[in-house]
C-alpha cells in the first residue's frame, strides 16, 4: 500500500507549481500601466510607421517641440512596423472605438478607402489660408477625392529610378541612354563585359513590379493605365500595352540581364552586387540615397529616369512616385489641434530638416535657400518640371490587383512564364475583384 501522505517532495512540487501559476495568472490579469498620464489635459494620438533611423529621431523632436509649444496638449506617437502598418495595422486602429487623431496614409486608392469608410476628415475648411499652396501642384491628384481634400502631403517619394555604379559606368565608357533600345544595348554590352547588367532583390515583388508599372504607364498612357488597374469595365490586364511591357522585361532576362537569384532576395540584399561592383544598374526608389550616404559614403553612384520608350502613348518623362502624408480621423475630438500639428510638420522650416536627413519633400519652399546636394537638386528639378507623376500599382490601386500584376512580372523576369500567359493567369486571379467592383 502506498502511503501517499509521505511524499513531501511531491507535495512541495505541486504546491510551488500551483502558486507560481496562479501568481503569474494574477499578474497577467492585473491592470496594465497606462502609457500616458491621463490628467495632463488633452491628448492626441498619432500612428505612423517610422520605426528606424534618423527619421525616427527627427519625428521625436518634432513631436516634443509641438508639445512644448502647446500648453496642456500631449501628442503621443504609436509606431508600427511598416509592412504590418500598411496592411492590417492601420485599419485595426482606424476602425477601433478609440481611433487615433492623426495617421499616416498614402494618396490614391488607400485615401479613397479611408474616405469611403468614414475615417477621414475633410480638410478643405482649413486649407483656405494658403496651407494648400505650400505643396507641389502635382500632389493635388493625391490629396483630393470627390471634391474634398483629405491629405496633408509629407513625403513625395520617387519610387523607381535607375541607379548605377558610376565608376563602372565610366570604365565602360557609357553615356546615359536616350531611349529604351539604347538602354537595352548598354545592358548587352555590360553582360558581354562580364558584369551583371541589372540587379534587384525582388522577393517581395514590388521592386521590379514598380518598374514594370512605370514602363506600362509609359506605353499605354497614364489615364488608361489607371483605368486598367482600377478595373474599369472593358479593360483587362492582358492589354497589349501590358503584354509589351513584360516582353520588354523578358528581352533583358533572355540574355541574362538580371542577377540569377533576383526573385529570391530581399530588396536590400539586391543592392549588394551593385555596391560590390558586380552589377551596373539597380532600379529602386530614391530612399536608398540616404542609406548609402550613411553606410557606404565612398560608393560613387548616379541615376537616370527610365528612358523614353519609342511609340509609347504616355508622357515619356513621367516619374513614378508616391505621395504620402498625414490624415485626420473624422472622429477626432480635437481636429483643430491635429491640423495645427500638420501645419507645423508641413512648414518649410520643418521640411528642410527632412531634406537634411536625405528625404524628399512635398513642400515647395522647403527646397529654397538650402545648399542642396547636386543629386537632390536634380530630383527637385524633376519634381518641379511638371511632368506627370504616376502612382505605382501597389499604393495607387487595390493591393490585390497590383500583387497579381507584380507576380506576373516576377514570373516573366526569370523566364518561367511567357508574358501573355502570365498576364492571363493574373487576370483570372483578379476576377473576384472585378465582380466586387460592379
Amino acid at each position, binding site marked *: 500500500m502506498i502511503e501517499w501522505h509521505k511524499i513531501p517532495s511531491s507535495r512541495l512540487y505541486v504546491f510551488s507549481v500551483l502558486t507560481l501559476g496562479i501568481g503569474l495568472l494574477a499578474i497577467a490579469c492585473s491592470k496594465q500601466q497606462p502609457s500616458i498620464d491621463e490628467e495632463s489635459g488633452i491628448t492626441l494620438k498619432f500612428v505612423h510607421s517610422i520605426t528606424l533611423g534618423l527619421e525616427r529621431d527627427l519625428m521625436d523632436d518634432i513631436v516634443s517641440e509641438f508639445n512644448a509649444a502647446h500648453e496642456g496638449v500631449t501628442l503621443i506617437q504609436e509606431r508600427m512596423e511598416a509592412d504590418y502598418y500598411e496592411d492590417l495595422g492601420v485599419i485595426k486602429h482606424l476602425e477601433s472605438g478609440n481611433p487615433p487623431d492623426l495617421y499616416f496614409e498614402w494618396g490614391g486608392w488607400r485615401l479613397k478607402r479611408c474616405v469611403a469608410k468614414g475615417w477621414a476628415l475633410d480638410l478643405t475648411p482649413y486649407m483656405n489660408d494658403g496651407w494648400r499652396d505650400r505643396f507641389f501642384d502635382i500632389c493635388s491628384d493625391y490629396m483630393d477625392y470627390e471634391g474634398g481634400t483629405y491629405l496633408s502631403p509629407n513625403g513625395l517619394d520617387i519610387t523607381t529610378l535607375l541607379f548605377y555604379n558610376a565608376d563602372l559606368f565610366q570604365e565602360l565608357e557609357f553615356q546615359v541612354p536616350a531611349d529604351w533600345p539604347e538602354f537595352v544595348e548598354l545592358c548587352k554590352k555590360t553582360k558581354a563585359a562580364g558584369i551583371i547588367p541589372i540587379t534587384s532583390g525582388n522577393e517581395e*515583388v514590388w521592386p521590379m513590379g514598380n518598374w514594370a508599372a512605370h514602363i506600362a504607364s509609359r506605353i499605354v498612357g497614364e489615364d488608361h493605365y489607371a483605368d486598367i488597374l482600377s478595373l474599369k469595365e472593358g479593360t483587362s490586364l492582358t492589354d497589349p500595352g501590358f503584354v509589351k511591357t513584360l516582353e520588354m522585361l523578358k528581352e533583358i532576362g533572355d540574355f541574362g540581364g538580371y*542577377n540569377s*537569384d533576383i526573385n*529570391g532576395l530581399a530588396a536590400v540584399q539586391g543592392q549588394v552586387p551593385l555596391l560590390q561592383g558586380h552589377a551596373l544598374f539597380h532600379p529602386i526608389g530614391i530612399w536608398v540615397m540616404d542609406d548609402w550616404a550613411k553606410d557606404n559614403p565612398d560608393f560613387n553612384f548616379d541615376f537616370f529616369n527610365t528612358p523614353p520608350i519609342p511609340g509609347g502613348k504616355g508622357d515619356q518623362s513621367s516619374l513614378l512616385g508616391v505621395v504620402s502624408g498625414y490624415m485626420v480621423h473624422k472622429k477626432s475630438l480635437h481636429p483643430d489641434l491635429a491640423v495645427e500639428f500638420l501645419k507645423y510638420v508641413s512648414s518649410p522650416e520643418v521640411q528642410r530638416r527632412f531634406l537634411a536627413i536625405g528625404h524628399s519633400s512635398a513642400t515647395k519652399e522647403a527646397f529654397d535657400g538650402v545648399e542642396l546636394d547636386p543629386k537632390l537638386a536634380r530630383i527637385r528639378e524633376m519634381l518641379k518640371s511638371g511632368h506627370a507623376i504616376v502612382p505605382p500599382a501597389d499604393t495607387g490601386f487595390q493591393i490585390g490587383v497590383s500583387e497579381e500584376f507584380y507576380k506576373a512580372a516576377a*514570373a516573366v523576369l526569370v523566364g518561367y512564364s511567357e508574358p501573355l500567359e502570365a498576364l492571363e493567369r493574373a487576370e483570372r486571379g483578379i476576377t473576384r475583384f472585378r465582380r*466586387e467592383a460592379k
Partner: protein
Amino acid sequence: MGFFPLIAVILFVVLPALVVLWRAVRMTRTYGAFERRVRRELWGYMFVFPAYLFFVFIILIPTFGTFWLSFKVPLGQFAIEFRHGLGNYVTVMRDPNVHEAFLNNTFYLFATLIVEVLVGLIMAIILADDRRGFHFFRLLFFTPMMLSMVIVSLLWKFILRSEGGLLSHTLNAVGLSSLADTPWMAHPTFTLPTICLISGWIYAGFYLILFHAAIRRIPPSLLESARLDGCNEFQLNRHVTLPLMKDVSIVCVLICATGAFKAFDLFYVMSPSGANHTEMVATYLVKQILDYDDPYYGSTIAVLMTVVVFALSLIITAFQKRTDRLEF
C-alpha cells in the same frame, strides 16, 4: 456574427451540462441515494470541464464563426456593403491561386513525409543506442526547432544565394561549377523543393524524438531474444523494431500530414509574396486577412482547408483502426 456566440454557448455548454445533470438526477432516483457511482460520473465531467471550456471557446465556436463569415460577400471595392450567399465559394473554386496553393500543399505533404518522418525514423534507428555522444546528437538535431523562423530564413538565404552563398562556394570548390549558379530560392522550379528540404532540416529532429521514445519503449528482452536467434542489425530493425513502431508511425504521419496543410510561418518568411509560385493555402488565407482586408474570402478558404484537413485525418485514422492498436 452578433447573436451567434450566444447560440453556440447554449448549444455547447448549457445543453451538455443540463443533460449531465438530468442523468445524475435520474440515476439518483433509480438508485436511491446520491450514490457512489453517480458521484464518480460527475467527478469525471468536472475534471474534463475546464479543458472542454477552453476547447469550446478558443476552437469550436470560432470555427463555426468562420463558417458563418464565409457566406458574407463584400460588395464594391471598399467592402462597405455585403450580400449573403455562396458567392465566395463560387469564387474560390475559380481562383487560380487557390488551385496552385492546394497543389503546392499536396507536394509539400509528400515531401515532408519523406524528409521529416522518414528521415526522423532512420535517424532514430541509427541513434537508438544510449552510446556516449548520441544524446548530444539528438539534442543537436532538435535545435533548429527552437530557432526563430526569421533566423532560419536569413541563415538559409545566405547559404543558398548564388552570389557569394556558402553552397555555391562549396559547389565551385568541388568542381560542380555548373550547379553553383542554380537559383535555389529564386526560381519557381527550385524554390518549393528547397523549402521542403529546409522544412526537413527543421522538423526531422522532432520526429526523431518521437521515434526515439518509441524505440526506447520496446522491451529489451525482445531484441535480446531476436539477437540470440541470429538476427543481424538490419533484420532486427526490419522484423522487430519497425513493426512495433507502426502505431507511433501513424501518429507521426497524422501530425505531419495535417501539419503540412497548415504550413504557414516557414513559407511566410522564406517567400513572403509567393513570387516563385510557393503560395500555400495558409499563406494565401492570411494574405486575405492581413493584406487584402477581406476576412470573408479568407474564411471561405479556411472552411475549405478545414474540410481537407479533416478528411485527411479521417483517412489516416482509418488505417489506425485497422491495426486496432492505438487509442485516438
